């Protein structure tokens, strides 16, 4: 008899979601749905507000990656103002964005995923969490906590707040960097290097234990999207978008923020509030793509920093073309962190970094603006329209997690078909179905915006729709 399996809630994610698996009469999984039922109202309730309020307002979408929203929003506002921000302001914002990436990736890798990687996918859920990591390998747990603290403290020093700093504004930043703060950040860098290098070495030792998961965790051909610089190096704050295919061919290059909507559309599926972005010329779902650490490393030809470049060379040896297995998001995340530390150090040694000119001012010079930045989880786009007085008429946000939505759903199906026997549900099977989503590190709060709390579950349904089994966390 066919059935439906529900995993509800899916644990160790940013936000809450639910997985539904439908089996046939033989218990083989036929369909899989990753459902997010939270609703984001931000686009609607910002209408009528002055555009210059948008960075502070939009940052409230998320407590994990508010800086990405600050940066993308400020850039959209600067397009409306038609201004180029001062060099020092651009560098300081780049550093803030990288610091956020480091803290967010540390949360994902060390807090959320390292329990699976260290203790195993079949370990008892009662011990498969950060505390279990701390007990089994305290150096790893301590390094993760310290790396997250490194990123958070930079945000706190620059923005005067760890969460939702108001320092980034349309036109630049509110105040320049002081010598004392620069020196404090520089003093933290050697330990940050040590912690990420330790994690990289450890990860390379344990990754051979996960051959099956590497093969089945959202491992399929797809397009990849991300920001790059003109010299083909990875970029998080400026640059232009590049789309490549599963063989590494450039499908479209030099896509600037204002061209985003010309190139990408959003499909809707009835089971989720998260939309399904796609590359318009290929249509939906053929034009679906992946974003985030894996996509960034697949797209960039160089990291632009020496230590991360050594890792990129090693990463690219995983495949002749782009690395298609989503399990390697974990590895890419660590390389991102290493790059972030190197770039922060480089930015702090910029001779102009203490310059006092950090803000450009202007009024409304255009009635439409786009801003793109790389959030930790991938490309983030803000699009605004304003009236002559600068009051918001329209906003649309295309979030990284949404852009990975199709791949996450395909990945859940692929993993479930390998590990789920519809006649019996076991924790190890279910954890692998959750873990494939964890590789993408989705931020469900960002992708829909949470309103209240919706836990995630796995549900097993029969072909007639009747519920045969359900697991809640």
């Amino acid at each position, binding site marked *: 008899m066919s059935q439906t399996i529900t995993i509800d809630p899916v*644990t160790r994610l940013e936000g809450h979601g639910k997985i539904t698996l439908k089996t046939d009469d033989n218990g083989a999984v036929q369909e899989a749905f990753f459902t997010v039922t939270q609703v984001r109202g931000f686009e609607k309730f910002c209408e009528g507000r002055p555009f210059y309020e948008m960075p502070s307002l939009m940052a409230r979408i998320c407590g994990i990656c508010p800086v990405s929203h600050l940066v993308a929003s400020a850039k959209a506002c600067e397009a409306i103002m038609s201004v180029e921000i001062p060099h020092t302001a651009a560098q300081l914002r780049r550093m803030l964005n990288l610091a956020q990436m480091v803290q967010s990736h540390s949360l994902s890798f060390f807090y*959320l995923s390292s329990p699976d990687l260290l203790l195993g996918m079949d370990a008892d859920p009662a011990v498969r*969490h*950060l*505390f279990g990591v*701390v007990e089994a390998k305290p150096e790893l747990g*301590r390094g993760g*906590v310290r790396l997250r603290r490194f990123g958070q403290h930079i945000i706190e020093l620059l923005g005067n707040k760890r969460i939702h700093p108001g320092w980034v504004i349309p036109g630049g930043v509110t105040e320049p960097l002081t010598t004392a703060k620069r020196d404090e950040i520089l003093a933290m860098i050697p330990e940050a290097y040590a912690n990420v290098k330790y994690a990289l070495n450890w990860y390379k030792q344990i990754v051979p234990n996960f051959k099956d998961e590497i093969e089945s965790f959202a491992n399929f051909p797809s397009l990849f999207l991300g920001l790059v610089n003109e010299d083909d190096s990875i970029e998080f704050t400026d640059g232009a978008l590049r789309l490549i295919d599963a063989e590494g061919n450039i499908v479209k290059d030099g896509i600037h923020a204002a061209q985003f909507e010309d190139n990408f559309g959003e499909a809707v599926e009835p089971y989720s509030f998260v939309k399904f972005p796609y590359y318009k010329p290929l249509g939906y779902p053929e034009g679906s793509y992946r974003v985030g650490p894996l996509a960034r490393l697949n797209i960039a030809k160089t990291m632009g920093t020496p230590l991360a470049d050594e890792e990129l060379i090693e990463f690219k040896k995983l495949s002749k073309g782009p690395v298609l297995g989503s399990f390697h998001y974990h590895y890419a995340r660590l390389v991102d962190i290493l790059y972030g530390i190197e770039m922060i150090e480089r930015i702090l040694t910029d001779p102009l970094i203490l310059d006092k000119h950090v803000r450009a001012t202007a009024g409304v010079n255009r009635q439409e603006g786009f801003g793109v930045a790389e959030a930790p989880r991938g490309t983030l786009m803000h699009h605004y329209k304003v009236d002559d007085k600068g009051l918001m008429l329209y906003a649309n946000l295309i979030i990284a997690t949404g852009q990975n939505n199709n791949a996450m759903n395909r990945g859940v199906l692929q993993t479930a078909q390998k590990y789920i026997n519809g006649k019996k549900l076991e924790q190890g099977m279910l954890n692998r179905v959750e873990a494939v989503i964890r590789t993408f590190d989705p931020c469900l709060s960002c992708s829909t915006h949470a309103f209240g709390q919706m836990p995630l579950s796995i549900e097993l349904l029969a072909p007639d729709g009747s519920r045969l089994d359900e697991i809640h966390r």
Partner: protein
Amino acid sequence: MVPGLTRSIVSVGRQLVVACGNTLRGDDGVAWRIAEAIQKDASLHELRVVIAHQLTPELAEPISGAETVIFVDCSAISLPGEVSVFPVERANNTTGSLTHNVDPSTLLALSQELFGSLPRRAFAITVGGQSFELGERLTELVTLAIPAAVQAIKGLLKNESVEV
């Protein structure tokens, strides 16, 4: 300054207050107001105060270096405006993912496991909340309880038995 309280009496060398709550949800922000009050108190100028939305694992490090830690939060189950003081002990068993939100007992355990030490004394001070609706204002009962909570913190820092 509280009568009779001098800087020499309040020994604050390695003392830490961790205040947490959400200032956008009415009375849930009371710990921030208490923290701001003690930060303005000249007699407590060496006291380290950490203000946070939630208790997260990163707090284990500053906690591990403190001799006394006092957690301050709003209580959804106490009577509105009621100030309560509890000793906090290290958790023996920890479950859950420990990502965004941990409790004081677990933070003590984490500080021991990760950084090899934990405070000699640990307390929680709570103020009963009345309204958690959207808004940055505290209700009157909760506002009136702030001085008592500040006094309770000072008493604990002086190593006094606290009655509230």
